[in-house]
């Protein structure tokens, strides 16, 4: 007799609402001819707001749903919020971009919403299969979105490169999962943890752990698995690049942390050493390669690689302090990077014609407010107080110091100093150099302005009053320990 699993919709309600909003856009978009982008954006925002409300009960839950496939806990709560913020701001800043490019593609919003739903399943997944399905839901949506610019060869190329390397990474991930399954006989995270605590840890399980680690490192773009990042970030439509750089990273890190701290704690000594080496490589290569970039999208791509290195430090430090640092960092990074890419999308104008660093000359004169916002984002990325980026770095570095990783922190601080150079170059271009021909000042649409105001306010607010948010992050990591 097969017993049906108990259905608890609380855990998946936020993701369901996003999918529902996506389906509504698909139906409505079919009938509308004019203003389809604005309507889809509005429906998407309503769906995201509803999901934010539906997400609240997760904060006080500590449960699992659907036969232990999905964890319903505060950890998912926090990261769901990060993902919803990322999706919401992306949708807001995409309307203007799509209008400028002349693409009346309402499917764009649908895919962003579906990708966000996939991210939520990845974050909440309490079973390797669930995490894999979440990962693929988000990846396949983003492969399509990355190739979404009809006229651009670069965009297709980015999509193809992302698909091939993403597929390769999920192959690695799955093979690792198969080996873990062979070693433990189950793939549920709690089952794996129980198995490894009871018995000794064999070679099969270690190989599986290594392959899963490689799969995750591809997704968070840690060196040496970062090759796809600059090309994909450069070729994809800019608002989507923003979404990729924060949403995919947050979801991948969330699942990375959950799998390694819940299921594979017995291997902590092994994977900490691997991550140590990867973090050092990632920080050095990311920051050094960013210095020589002239294209701002590629510069921010390498900067996002470097930030993956800083977040890895939080994982190496481990414990409540390290992981809550990771969560806070992801929140801070979401606001900062979305804002920065939002401005890159605006300055880029039609056809992304102006995405070189030199196109930022004189922005301080022509658009003073935009330049101020961009400076704040650059400060935050460089980790200068009073911005959120500073608190994030400070929390992670001090957690690592408390665990005795002195050399790691020294390398991190040195590479941060290198990063100040290229972030400040943007600010220098905006204020101290003048272009040969001054282009007309940029006009902001209300949605874009709202997205930029929210991200600027977010960067400053959680940077100046970090206590609440650090407290929330600390509260959210409890289910893992």
């Amino acid at each position, binding site marked *: 007799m097969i017993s049906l699993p108990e259905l608890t919709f609380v855990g998946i309600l936020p993701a369901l609402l996003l999918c529902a909003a996506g389906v509504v856009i698909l139906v409505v978009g079919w009938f509308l001819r004019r203003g389809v982008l604005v309507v889809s954006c509005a429906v998407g925002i309503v769906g995201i707001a509803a999901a934010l409300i539906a997400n609240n009960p997760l904060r006080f839950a500590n449960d699992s749903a659907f036969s232990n496939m999905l964890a319903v806990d505060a950890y998912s709560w926090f990261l769901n919020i990060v993902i919803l913020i990322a999706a919401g701001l992306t949708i807001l800043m995409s309307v203007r971009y799509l209008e400028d490019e002349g693409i009346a593609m309402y499917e764009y919003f649908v895919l962003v919403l579906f990708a966000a739903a996939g991210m939520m399943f990845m974050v909440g997944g309490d079973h390797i*299969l669930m995490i*894999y*399905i979440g990962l*693929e839901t988000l*990846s*396949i949506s983003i*492969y*399509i979105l990355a*190739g979404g610019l009809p006229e651009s*060869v*670069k965009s*297709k*190329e*980015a*999509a*193809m*490169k992302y*698909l*091939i390397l993403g*597929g*390769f990474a*999920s*192959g690695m991930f*799955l*093979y690792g*999962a*198969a*080996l873990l*399954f*062979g070693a433990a*006989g*189950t*793939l549920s995270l709690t089952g794996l943890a129980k198995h490894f605590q009871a018995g000794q840890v064999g070679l099969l399980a270690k190989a599986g752990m290594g392959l899963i680690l490689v799969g995750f490192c591809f997704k968070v773009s840690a060196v040496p698995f970062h090759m796809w990042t*600059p*090309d994909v970030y*450069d*070729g994809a439509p800019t608002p989507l690049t923003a979404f990729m750089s924060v949403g995919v990273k947050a979801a991948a890190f969330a699942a990375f942390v959950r799998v390694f701290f819940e299921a594979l704690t017995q291997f902590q000594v092994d994977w900490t050493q691997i991550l140590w080496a990867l973090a050092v490589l990632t920080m050095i290569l990311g920051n050094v*390669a960013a210095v020589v*970039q002239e294209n701002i999208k*590629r510069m921010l791509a390498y900067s996002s690689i470097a930030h993956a290195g800083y977040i890895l430090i939080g994982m190496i430090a481990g414990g409540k302090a390290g992981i809550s640092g990771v969560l806070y960092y992801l929140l801070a990074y979401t606001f900062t990077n979305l804002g920065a890419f939002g401005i890159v999308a605006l300055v880029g104008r039609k056809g992304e014609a102006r995405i070189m660093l030199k196109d930022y000359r004189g922005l301080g004169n022509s658009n003073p407010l935009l330049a101020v916002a961009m400076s704040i984002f650059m400060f935050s990325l460089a980790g200068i107080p009073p911005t959120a980026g500073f608190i994030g770095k400070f929390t992670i570095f001090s957690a690592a110091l408390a665990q005795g990783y002195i050399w790691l922190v020294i390398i991190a601080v040195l590479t941060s100093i290198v990063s100040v150079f290229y972030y400040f170059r943007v600010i220098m271009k905006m204020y101290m150099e003048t272009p040969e021909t001054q282009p007309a000042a940029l006009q902001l649409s209300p949605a874009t302005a709202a997205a930029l105001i929210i991200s600027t306010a977010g960067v400053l607010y959680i940077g100046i009053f970090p206590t609440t948010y650090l407290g929330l992050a600390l509260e959210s990591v409890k289910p893992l320990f």
Partner: protein
Amino acid sequence: MLTLDHYLVLSAILFFLGAVGVMVRAQIIVVLMCLELMLNAVNLAFVAFARHLGSVEGQVIVLFVMVVAAAEVAVGLAIAVAIFRQKGAVGIDDLRVMKW
């Protein structure tokens, strides 16, 4: 008599062939086929383990992996068609607009 080891060795060889193929082959279509080969090697490992451990879980996972692989290759071929329409060829060497 075929044992678990035989299946695992075969799956490892297939996975390796697929991975090498992704890295060295010059045609996008062949690269996509190599990706499929990797995933099917994984499926073989899952099924072999499931049989060995007497657990259904591994077999269920295979069904999911097959669905996802089909979706992925559908998108991959669509992008390949889009590239072909713009450039008239679908070689890996045609993906060279961007280079660091």
